[in-house]
């Protein structure tokens, strides 16, 4: 047995190395090289009469620090962070509901399949569905009007709320599929012990269950934050121009105005800000646990 595994080692490490190199190669070609190219382009000079000129200028970065882009950045961070928190809270409530009813295996499977199929829908389809649901002619407002709850039904999109609903829908299935198995399969004896020792039952989730999952909840919220930061369709489809995020501005500049250098510079700054924020929040959450 020992002999065999010893003999197998060189092969294993060779395979591992090849796999590692392949992964690195793929990462370089499809991620690092485009990223490097983006950084390079962000220093080029845009040419409104043609395309761009190869140059080295800080001009594009200076534009970022005009009040407008700073404002957009702030509201992007705000709406994305809000959606990330909301989606995790909503999923927690949803999961809690499911675990309370102690579903049979068959029903659990049903929910997992439903959530998986939700993940298959593209952003555009989710956005469009909400657009119809929130519209005055075919959706919720009309229903409320017909039921007599709303005298003058009006379309609920585009609006900030509609955009947040869209973002939350996008994140919902992902977060559920991560959280649900964890919560459903948790060790319930800890909670029982807490009750036996006199914790009021309605406080158990807050004193015991949530703190146990604290790390994974924080990690999930941060993941959602980064994921939702890059969403393009929801702000454009469901938000007003005053809700548009940096993603929309970047694509507007890079594609809509064919000003690739400015678009690249905006993207680079957003990348740095996001990275810094993530590091900061990870650092803070670790520090508190210790």
């Amino acid at each position, binding site marked *: 047995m020992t002999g065999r595994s010893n003999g197998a080692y060189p092969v294993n490490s060779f395979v591992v190395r090849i796999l590692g190199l392949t992964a690195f190669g793929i990462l370089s070609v499809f991620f690092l090289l485009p990223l490097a190219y983006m950084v390079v382009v962000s220093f080029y000079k845009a040419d409104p009469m*043609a395309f761009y000129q190869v140059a080295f200028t800080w001009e594009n970065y200076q534009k970022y620090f005009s009040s407008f882009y700073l404002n*957009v950045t702030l509201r992007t961070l705000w709406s994305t962070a809000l959606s990330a928190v909301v989606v995790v809270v909503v999923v927690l409530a949803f999961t809690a509901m499911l675990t309370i009813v102690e579903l049979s295996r068959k029903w659990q499977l049903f929910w997992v399949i439903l959530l998986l199929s939700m993940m298959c829908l593209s952003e555009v389809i989710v956005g469009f569905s909400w657009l119809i649901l929130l519209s005055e002619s075919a959706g919720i407002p009309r229903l409320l009007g017909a039921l007599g709850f709303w005298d003058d039904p009006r*379309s609920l999109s585009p609006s900030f709320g509609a955009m947040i609903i869209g973002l939350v829908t996008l994140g919902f299935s992902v977060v559920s599929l991560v959280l649900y198995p964890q919560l459903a399969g948790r060790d319930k004896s800890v909670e029982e012990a807490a009750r036996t020792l006199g914790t009021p039952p309605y406080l158990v989730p807050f004193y015991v269950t949530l703190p146990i999952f604290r790390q994974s909840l924080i990690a999930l919220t941060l993941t959602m934050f980064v994921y939702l930061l890059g969403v393009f369709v929801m702000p454009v489809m469901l938000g007003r121009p005053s809700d*548009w995020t940096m993603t929309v501005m970047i694509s507007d500049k890079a*594609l*809509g105005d064919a000003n690739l250098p400015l678009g690249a510079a905006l993207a680079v700054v957003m990348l740095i800000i996001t990275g810094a924020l993530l590091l900061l929040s990870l650092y803070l959450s670790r520090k508190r646990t210790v």
Partner: protein
Amino acid sequence: MYKTTKAIGFATALFASAATANAESITVSVWGGFFEETLAAEVYPGFTEKTGIEVKSIAQPEDSTWMTQLMAAARAKKAPADLSLVADEVLIRGNNAGLWAKLDPNNLTDTKDLKEGYVKLDDSNKAYAVGALAFYTTLVTNTDYTKDAPASWADLWEDKWDSKLGIVTTPNSGLLEATAKTFFGGYEIMQTREGLEKVIAKIAELKPQVSLWYRDEGQFQQGLEAGELNAGLYYHDVAMLSIWDGKPIASNFPKEGGILSNAYWVVPRDSKNISATEKFVSYMSLPETQALMARKLGIFPIVPRDSMDLTDEEFSAVGSEIEAVKVQTEIHLREGDWLESKYQEMIAQ
């Protein structure tokens, strides 16, 4: 490393397959949607019948996005299409960037009927673009909401649309020019940045009334037909198609004029089928073809009216005698980034 080269090879092969190598066929790209479908179904077959050259029709995205893609393709020495339809701004920017192939005017004799200035010649007397068609942007209204046709662009500023206006987000929609002509006595004010700021401030007054700022025309159309929008800036040709389809829509030419824009055929530099493309633009310039496009697509022809057999009714359906509002492309190009940023800030702030 081998894998990398292979992946790149595969990607290039994918890209190359878009441009056809067959001499007897050309790939033509125009703005996607009904426009592209109608051209492919009603107009291109006549060309194939006449010349034996097959046309492969593809849809292209919005102007600047398409230019960015053409630019990337040109760097790889590929042409995603042999012919492409572009508006003024992209035509000029693309030409300055050397994106367009040069055509021989001697092979373009059939373009003689085009109004003056539609065959764009460079310094060496070669053609880098040929006019394709013109199209109006008008003040489109929902007739279920109001039967009154607005008489002036100024009507947009009146508080009578129930906060349901749809306006284009890009500054080159012609709204700047229409505003300048309506409120500031002409385009003169647009010559300076201070002037442009005044015009933009005037447009900003529309904001409380605007429920949709759009880039994608499909979104406007859907909103208008569903009663989510009562009026807005929209393309006359697509509006006419909806009207012919029985939708409750009216396309109105205000007294200051509709906004007239031109579209041109260009040949991406790396196309291998130059001679076939020359035949194509020639065919598209014939008065018969222009009249056919007016009837089927609702676009405004760019050959003199008396060269076509359009009836009065057909002609008035696609345009108007009122002097049109013209997009000041030089100003848009000169002020490029500054103007776009100011406009975007006005909308998004």
